[in-house]
């Protein structure tokens, strides 16, 4: 082992140890010192992850990877480790003040430390067993946070549904591992990559990829197993923040990690595109109908995870990773500041609402497409396939909408368009800049699936435009969306039949 690679591995492994050390030993631990200790150790762990990332960036690309059996520090993992530890540090600091006066704080610190340690281990996994064990450990530690209040039936139900999904995912992963192990002759992931480079993918490996994809779907709370993620509002706000920002997106990391396998397994990729896209579209619509802030944020996460998984299926790993990071930071902040919803409503009342004009609804996507295409063409090496520019154009078209009946004092159409155009340009430039960041992944876009994604996003834009212009025409859709398409009701019943449990607390109302 070279000195650099040992240093690399050490700096990547240190956070695991530090977070384990943050777990208070005695149940009756005194509260403030427990948090203080957590804070100190998590800042140390954060420094360690930053150092590890620095070392990775400084190291030769494709340099020494594996240094210890079953573990491997990667550049991608280093990025995610910094992200997760940052979230853990912030959420820990938040919780130490937010939970003041609550019983069960030491338990919370322990679970937080446990989750973070397990995540760091997962990020280093280079062996099926490490992967399976670490991912299961994340779920187990999380159970304590989900059930922070053991007297709340919906918290218990959500935790149970999560448990059911986790065990199914475990089974799928074990199956995937068994198939691959048998084929490759080793449980090592590096060995798997080497095997795939040398050999054509067998049916067994394709099946392994499908199982893996399904396990990710289960762990990432895509439809139809999203229910528990929506219902974790029954735990304190920082738990939601941690879950929605730092844990749920690990599926994306695993998919990126398994890019080599996925590229050899078209069925698995189509599965990811199909489920991811469906989730993104449906959950996106449901999100628009939510009447409480936290539930809206939760549906937004489901939709965003669908989109990220779809990107993985499409082979757009850079985008998926950008998504993973950007969404985490955004969603953690959004959850922690969920109670500013009242201020936001006050500001909305001050600003008033203006419906966009039909003409601008129709023309905005064209204008947006023009701008995206122009900016992308100015870059020498296209950062993404052409159809993705179409997806972006649909995404940012709403920034170019103009009010149907403008306030005479309000800025005119030209000023509005210029402001919107400026924002679209800034967003495209930011997206281009994001692609310059060395993440250590290489994209493998799938054109046919990409077209499907583009068509779907055009359809989604069409739906939104119709929603603006003729909301009454979509009354039935709204009803279904408001009901979450009834998916969770049936999924819950299935989960309870598969694994019955008592989730209502005894003898209370």
């Amino acid at each position, binding site marked *: 082992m070279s000195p650099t690679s040992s240093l690399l591995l050490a700096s990547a492994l240190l956070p695991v140890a530090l977070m384990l050390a943050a777990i208070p030993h005695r149940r009756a631990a005194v509260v403030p010192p427990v948090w203080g200790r957590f804070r100190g150790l998590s800042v140390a762990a954060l420094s360690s992850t930053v150092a590890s990332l620095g070392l990775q960036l400084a190291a030769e690309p494709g340099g020494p990877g594996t240094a210890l059996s079953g573990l491997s520090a990667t550049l991608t993992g280093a990025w995610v480790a910094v992200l997760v530890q*940052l979230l853990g540090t912030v959420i820990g*600091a938040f919780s130490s*003040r*937010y939970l003041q*006066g*609550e019983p069960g704080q030491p338990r919370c610190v322990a679970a937080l430390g446990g989750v973070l340690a397990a995540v760091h281990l997962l990020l280093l996994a280079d062996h099926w067993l490490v992967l399976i064990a670490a991912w299961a450990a994340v779920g187990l530690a999380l159970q304590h946070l989900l059930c922070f209040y053991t007297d*709340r039936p*919906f918290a218990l139900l959500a935790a149970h549904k999560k448990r059911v999904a986790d065990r199914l995912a475990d089974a799928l992963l074990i199956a995937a591992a068994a198939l691959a192990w048998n084929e490759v002759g080793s449980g090592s992931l590096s060995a798997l990559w080497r095997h795939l480079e040398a050999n054509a993918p067998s049916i067994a490996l394709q099946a392994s990829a499908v199982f893996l994809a399904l396990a990710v779907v289960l762990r990432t709370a895509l439809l139809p197993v999203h229910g528990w993620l*929506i219902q974790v*509002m*029954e735990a304190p*706000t920082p738990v939601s923040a941690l879950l929605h920002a730092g844990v749920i997106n690990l599926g994306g990391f695993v998919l990126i990690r398994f890019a080599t396998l996925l590229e050899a397994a078209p069925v698995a990729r189509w599965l990811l595109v199909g489920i991811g896209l469906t989730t993104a579209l449906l959950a*996106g619509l449901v999100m*628009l109908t939510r*009447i*409480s*802030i*936290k*539930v809206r944020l939760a549906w*937004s996460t489901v939709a*965003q995870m669908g989109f990220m998984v779809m990107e993985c299926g499409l082979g757009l790993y850079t985008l998926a990773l*950008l998504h993973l*990071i*950007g969404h985490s*930071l*955004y969603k953690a*902040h959004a959850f922690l*500041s969920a109670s*500013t*919803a*009242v*201020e936001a*409503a006050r500001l909305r009342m*001050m*600003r*008033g609402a203006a419906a966009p004009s039909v003409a601008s609804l129709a023309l905005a996507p064209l204008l947006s497409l023009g701008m995206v295409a122009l900016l992308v063409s100015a870059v020498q090496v296209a950062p993404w396939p052409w159809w993705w520019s179409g*997806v*972006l154009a649909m995404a*940012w078209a*709403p*920034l170019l909408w103009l009010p149907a009946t403008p*306030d005479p*004092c309000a800025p005119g159409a030209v000023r*509005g368009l210029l402001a919107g155009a400026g*924002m679209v340009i800034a*967003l*495209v430039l930011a*997206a281009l800049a994001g692609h310059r960041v060395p993440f250590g992944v290489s994209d493998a876009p799938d054109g046919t699936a990409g077209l499907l994604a583009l068509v779907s*996003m055009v359809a989604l*834009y069409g739906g*939104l435009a119709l*929603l603006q212009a003729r*909301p009454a025409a*979509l009354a039935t859709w709204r009803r279904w*969306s408001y009901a979450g398409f*009834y998916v969770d009701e*049936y999924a*819950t*019943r299935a989960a309870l039949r598969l694994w019955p449990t008592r989730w*209502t607390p005894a003898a209370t109302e």
Partner: protein
Amino acid sequence: MDTLLTPRTEPSQSLQLSAPTDADIGRRIDAACAQACRAIAPAWPLDRAIAVNPHWARTDLSVRTVAARMAVLGDIRVFPPRAQLRQAWASGRIAAADLNEALAQCPAARLAGLDAARAIDALAETPALPRLPLLIDVLDDDPRGQGRLSWRQAVTHQVSQVCAAYFDVHQADWQPERAGGLYAFWRDTLTHDQGIGVLMGLPDIARGLSALPATRQDAEQWVLRRLGLPEEAWADYLEAVLLTVNGWASWCAYLAWEARLAGGSDTHLRDLLAIRLAWGAILLECRDDKAAQGAFVALQMEWERSPARLQQAEDALLVDEVWQLALEVGYQRGLAQRLRAVAPPLSAAREGEQAFEVQAAFCIDVRSEPLRRAIESAWPAVQTIGFAGFFGLPVAYTPLATAARRPQLPGLLAPALEVTERVVDSVADFGAHGDALQASARQARLNSFARADRWGASSRWPNAAFSSVEAVGAGYLGKLVQWLRPSASARRSLDGTGLGSRYRPVCRPVLAGLDLPAKVDLSARVLHAMGLDRGLSRLVLLIGHGSQSANNAQAAALDCGACCGQTGEVNARVLARLLNEPDVRAGLCARDITMPEDIAFAAALHNTTTDEIEGFDLDLLDAAARGRWTRLQTVFAQACDQVRRERAVALGLDPRSPHATLLDQLRRRANDGAQTRPEWGLAGNAAFLIAPRARSRGAVLEGRVFLHDYDAADDADGSVLELLMTAPMLVTHWINWQYHASACDPQRLGSGNKLLHNVVGGRIGVFEGNGGDLRIGLARQSLHDGEHWRHEPLRLTVVIDAPAEAIECVIANHAVVRQLLDNGWLHLWRFTTDGGFMRYARGRWHAVMA
């Protein structure tokens, strides 16, 4: 105003006729529904969260009767839990003398032969007060919720979700069609619901839905005719039904309240009642005939015994009432001692004769008391005055270039005047000279709003949000890191958003559309009510109050109740401007209200979280007045520091810290979005003094007492006293009972755990977690520090310095006041001339033992 304040008409005598015709029964059912709906008190939205007594509409009954009804009809607790009382007894907070005094004061206790020994024994018991069942309870084959939610919970959840969808206008971007009204909306939602049967364990719910009554009236009639309950129990049954969705019922009652203030009416509450009743019809159809028959029999049997059950509960709660009283007697003893200690000698000169350098009018809010005391001790030449924090201006305020009009006055009243905003660089700009400025300021704000709206689209719509997090999600890094250490920045009003640094400091609220005589009238009225129509000093401060907290859905509950959950800033600034207008002053002079030639009125705000005083529009004052303000700053600095030190311990801070450190800590706490207890608000409130300041000056009242200045000598006709006893006294009673109720039943009358709060509809209220009923009242964190209750549930003790006859006159003329007193919702005392007190009880005055 009286119609608003009269809770409800006499109970159901009109319901007891014989040989009813069909139309007659219909009318009586209608009357019973109306009566049940009248029992629900309103709950204001989060952005106007004023405190309300949740039993307000039941104050025509005695506290103990209401406690019994709440227990039997809704499993709601009104008196403090016995465990808490036990602790108060064990710790000596309630002394044996207090208990004896309480027993002596309670005639029912004497009648029942309750003595101290039995009362003490009862503390160890928990009275069994089982709730009367509703139709959905007796139909439920799994009421304990073995494998699913009980139907009671499931129905509440479903109704709550539908109400949220119907009433929300600010959260969902995709709004439903709701033209048919609440009942039709619910019916439509339910008949199209494909999942509810699965959730409730009712695979054949479709059969039940076919029985769904078509209209609200049908639902009401159908259920009451079918149930076969004794007619006397109808209204009680319906009230119990409403209590299962008490949060939304309170929201509907708020809509009705607002409609009534505006001269209209609102029927959402009746719709809600009908929805809840119709659920019974659906579930009935889902069960077979035998089960249905059994349910009817069970229900009828239970409700035939309801009068006996209510009486039983009332008897059982006698002990609780005595202990509640004992808790209050203990507090009152201390209060009386403190007030006696500072009692002015009989010959003391009236305070008005003394010349003061500065006069400062504060809100009556309990948090003003420590600050007033500190300022008076820092510089005795300051006269402080307690007055309702809206300063008598019945206004609604609309920020510049917006349509976001909001009331800035007590919830009991409807706004009568409009306040708009004007950009004013110098006094001349108040006239036509400043008109040009207005257009550019409006333009600047609208531009800023349009930009914010446009950028908002990038996270609002799903496809935009997908790609935006990839592009700019990393930008949230900065915001996220801010959670690590909150800033120490000063309070910043939301109303200035979008004005930019050019206009923000010079945008000033002004009264709109009032001619000079009306302005003079208003000014004269307000000055008289404040006792400032003579003896004015050269600097008069109008000090409103406001809190400072971040990421706090219930922030408005910490602001000024008299300003409808807003800060007092707008009212103080408008009044100061009004009284500084030369024409108005001339008009006042003409009415014999004399004031010094160089007088200046200045508006300020007491930040109750950090105890800082912020002045407004000081740039418009002349140099001499500004000089006086500046000289006052050292007094404020010293006084505010003293108050911060007094408050520090309760907030877990070190009161020995240096001045700057303590202020810094409080400011960071105020800006800390993770802080669930930025300040204690009005926790601890226990008494209301309506008296000259001389009666309490120097007494340490620990921020537990509302103080309103009142001098009976200036109120020959008793009109000011009448106003005080029918407006501020009711407001303080509302506040007092909101804290009381939230502390005694944090689950049903408080909003539960703040860590789980989930804002509904942007402003309507909160859910605790995913759903369940809308929550009303205060969060547990607002009253409890994790180890101890910070609010002791005491009924307000009102102490008035006025002749007995004047007080009795108001009581005789106002049914609302009479009810509150006779039914034990508050205590009334008066000062006697010898520095002692008399206690009012059932029309007589009793001496208060020293």
